[in-house]
């Protein structure tokens, strides 16, 4: 299919060269009609080539979205380290409160 597209593009290139060199309106119209036809064939063939990879993109979208979610969770996980220290601090403050209460009882 790649070879077909390549040959059609070569043909369009030849037609374009003729169009730029030619000054005869009737011949121009024949060349335009031919180029119109060949271009449509080329677009169709190229479309079929591109369709072969479309499924790969679908699979990649799912995997990359998963990775995005994992990375966001990892960033949140890193933030938890600070939360752990805050928990220890909270425990120390709670102990201080208990000591204060004991002091009032004594």
């Amino acid at each position, binding site marked *: 299919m790649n070879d077909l597209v390549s040959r059609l593009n070569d043909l369009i290139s030849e037609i*374009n060269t003729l169009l730029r060199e030619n000054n005869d309106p009737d011949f121009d119209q024949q060349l335009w009609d031919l180029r119109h036809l060949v271009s449509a064939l080329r677009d169709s063939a190229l479309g079929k080539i591109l369709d072969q990879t479309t499924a790969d993109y679908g699979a990649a979208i799912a995997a990359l979205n998963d990775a995005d979610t*994992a990375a*966001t969770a*990892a960033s949140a996980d890193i933030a938890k*380290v600070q939360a752990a220290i805050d928990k*220890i601090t909270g425990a120390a403050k709670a102990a201080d409160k208990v000591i204060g209460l*004991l002091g009032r009882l004594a």
Partner: protein
Amino acid sequence: MNTRLLPAPCALALLLALSGCATPDQLAHVHSFSAAAGSYATQARDAFTRINDLSVERKLSEVALKAQPLEEGDFTGLLDTDERLATRLQALAALGAYAAALDGVASADNRAAVSQSSAALYAALVSARDDAQKLTGQGAGLTDADLGLVATAVKALGGAVTEARRAEALRTIVTRTDPAIQALCAALAADFHASVGSFKSMTDSVFTDQFDAYRRAAAGLGYDASLTRLRTLRTAYLARAHAADFLENLSQAALALAKAHAAVRDSFTQPSQDPAELVRAIGQLKAYADDIRAFHASLNSSGHE
């Protein structure tokens, strides 16, 4: 309780945690990779849109020249059917989001917050010690320096745990995602390579139509109008001349992106490996991304969008 012994287990834990840390070099490579991959995703999205727009422009150009009658299909681009463009743009958006998220993990910096938390811990410990002393009427053998040591160790440990978690997260994410990145890059490289000849041909057809239109109108144009038309024609001429390089670069850049991601993965799974290959792969990717960006900018500044 001899609190002076506390730093020893802390130091051991610190050492254990540090052994799994990401090095500054590894993080710098992740940053470079993410920036280049994000830039590539943007340029590739623009390129697919440009291919599609050009496939419409080619048809409209024939109609404007009165070479062909207008048909409804003339407004439909090559990639508009069967979700071709939508799927590709979605995949590239996902690639851009992945690059940004990866950079986010590499950049996550909670050192200031950890430092603040450990200072609060120190204050709480001092307060508890002082109250205990008031209650018992005797010292607990804990000096400010002892408590400061504990708070400093907690702070260091917090930093080390952060780095260890970061390294583990990056290793897991790039390893799991690598097969998808390899498949995506192979598809991008194949698509852009397959489109090179057709993209060039489409620019050639548009240039030819503009060339013909100018030739027909030239006799009736004054100097200024003629020069303006010729400048437009030159833009089309330059676009035709650079069309092949533009898409071929995007194809090669996709392969460089795949190689760089594999090198980043290896830097986490085989950290003893020589980083030269990683540096080379990322450098190559960045060079392609810069080239493509410069080319896009030149097309936009010349008004050919």
